[in-house]
């Protein structure tokens, strides 16, 4: 399915906005791997607009892409686009976020958000001594991972009598919003001892708000394992985060795409849940750009 056999085959890598380091690294890692395997690449960002994503699929098809590596813009709103690609004979390999339909994508390599959230929540509870008031920062409602992570958190925390969620607000994965919301929540509930955040950018916003309010006693944990949070952990700010193995699945997705292009099959199960790792002061030093040494 290539424009001209002489030309390098094209791999299109589409992720959410690179203004979040998580997705930026995702793209970079996949891009390097694809280049290493001798593909030409086209790196795009759909800014979480499924319509834009679908249009980028059209253009990928126009360019006779050999494969699409996708961190999608919506578990349901992406299905049609993947179908379209299949119809045009362009295999799609999903990373980070799954879609609500199996058998369409050649692979869905996602970190086990639930398991990761459970890790994070368990450690969060441990730090809190399994008691006290806490608040939760939610991600974008339209992003399924926001829901999955929240479920994971509560599967642990709701079991603990001592712990009470006094406030729950969305900050749409956004740092400034997290900052303002946290400040306001602290006003409404000065008793808050901990803030558990749906991702790292919001955790950073919360941490900044606590600094401003001189509330260093409040425990903050995130989820992603982004460099900024890792350094904050080392500096004794944020207490913990959960590393999503994007380095692993980004690379893996490209490799599977490569095998598929060559052999017509991946030889692996479509859905693969990759485990997440808890990052604390203890092992933070070993984390570099989403890679935990020794995993």
């Amino acid at each position, binding site marked *: 399915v290539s*424009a001209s056999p002489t030309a390098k085959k094209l791999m299109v890598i589409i992720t959410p*906005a*690179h203004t979040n380091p998580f997705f930026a690294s995702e793209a970079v890692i996949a891009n390097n791997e694809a280049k290493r395997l001798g593909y030409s690449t*086209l*790196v*795009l*960002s759909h*800014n*979480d*607009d*499924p*319509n834009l994503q*679908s*249009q*980028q699929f*059209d*253009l990928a*098809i*126009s*360019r*006779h892409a050999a494969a699409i590596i996708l961190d999608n813009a*919506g*578990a*349901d*709103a*992406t*299905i*049609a*686009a993947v179908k379209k690609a299949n119809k045009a004979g362009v295999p799609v390999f999903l990373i980070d976020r799954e879609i*609500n339909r199996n058998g369409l994508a050649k692979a869905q390599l996602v970190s086990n958000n639930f398991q990761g959230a459970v890790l994070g929540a368990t450690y969060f509870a441990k730090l809190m001594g399994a008691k006290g008031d806490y608040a939760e920062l939610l991600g*974008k*409602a*339209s992003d399924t991972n926001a829901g999955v992570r929240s479920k994971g958190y509560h599967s642990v925390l709701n079991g603990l009598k001592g712990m009470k969620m006094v406030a729950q607000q969305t900050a749409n994965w956004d740092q400034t919003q997290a900052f303002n919301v946290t400040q306001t929540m602290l006003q409404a509930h000065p008793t808050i001892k901990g803030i558990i955040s749906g991702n790292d950018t919001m955790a950073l916003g919360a941490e900044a708000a606590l600094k401003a309010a001189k509330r260093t006693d409040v425990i903050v944990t995130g989820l992603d394992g982004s460099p900024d949070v890792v350094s904050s952990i080392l500096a004794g700010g944020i207490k913990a985060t959960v590393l999503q193995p994007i380095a692993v699945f980004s690379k893996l997705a490209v490799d599977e795409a490569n095998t598929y292009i060559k052999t017509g099959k991946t030889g692996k199960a479509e859905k693969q849940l990759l485990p997440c790792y808890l990052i604390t002061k203890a092992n933070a030093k070993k984390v570099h750009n989403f890679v935990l040494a020794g995993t």
Partner: protein
Amino acid sequence: MTAQLDALRRRVRSSAAEELLGQMKTLHGWRSLLLRLRAFVALIGIVIFFSGVSPAFFTGSNLLVMTEHVAIVAIMAIGETFVILSAGIDLSVGSVAGLAGMIAGGLLNNGLILHPLGIVVWFNVPLVILIGLGVGAGAGAINGVVITKLGVAPFIATLGMLSVARGFADLRNNGATFPNLAGDAKQHNGGFGFLGTGSLLRVPFTIVLLALFIVVAVYIAKRTAFGRRVYAVGGNERAAELAGIRVNRIKMGVYVISGICAAMTGLLITSQLSAAFPDTATSYELTAIAAVVLGGTSLFGGRGTIGGTVIGAFVIGFLSDGLVLVGVSEFWQMIVKGSVIVAAVALDEAQRRRQSRASASASSLIEEVMSSDRPATQE
């Protein structure tokens, strides 16, 4: 200066007055053309450039695909054109698109649930589409009332609607998406996908729809009393009032049209993705307005054409897709798009100045003819 004038007189005396009149007839013709010309120039430039750098650009299939993408913005921009021609502005189109999509999605997935009566009503796709468009018309009507009856400036009235409509779109399913709108044989509401993905004799239906909207819009703007009055109201509201035009009705009309077009865009996106998500078309209003202005329509009202807007939409659409095709980073895309829009409009300004001078001088020739025809009266 006098030399020029005398030359002119001689030319006139030596007659060819009729021919001159002929020129005059077409004058307004090439004015409106000129208005679109530089959008044309930009478009041609873009096509040539990208065809050069990417072989995939100028292929039949890709042109079709890109035109489908253009249709989304173009239909929205066509509605916006009427508003701007009337010297208003509609910032709510993006949100209205989102709301219409969510309403349609909800009806397709869950039907209309009437709790008190304990019954569920299912609508077939044509009805769902009509209801979706109705939602757009309703939102537009509210804009119109707030603007004409409460005297709120269009910018603020529609800014409020931008926020309110989006809020309701989110509420409809608590921020969640309505998945898989394929419909259900048992409810006889299948086939919604045709809107965005079907095709008529090989032409994607989206493009057919765009053509339809263009034809109807051009007809309304050029051939109906309503259309002409929109120009009148935008050109000189007081004069329009004194000419007995019901200005408020005209304004209501344009916002309703704009709402309907916005809703159509929302339904198209929803159909293409076979999923209705609340963020549909967020901030598309700016692209739509940019397309309108690129097309030579004056933000002060009274001057502009539907055709121009469509070309404007093509410029923006082809530019975006072209940049993606050749793999320009999203950041540079923003910079290029912003600059191109401003540059094109600046060009337009310069051109209009020059061109109005041109048309004016032609008309003065006519005057000369007319007055030199008859002997001047002396008292």
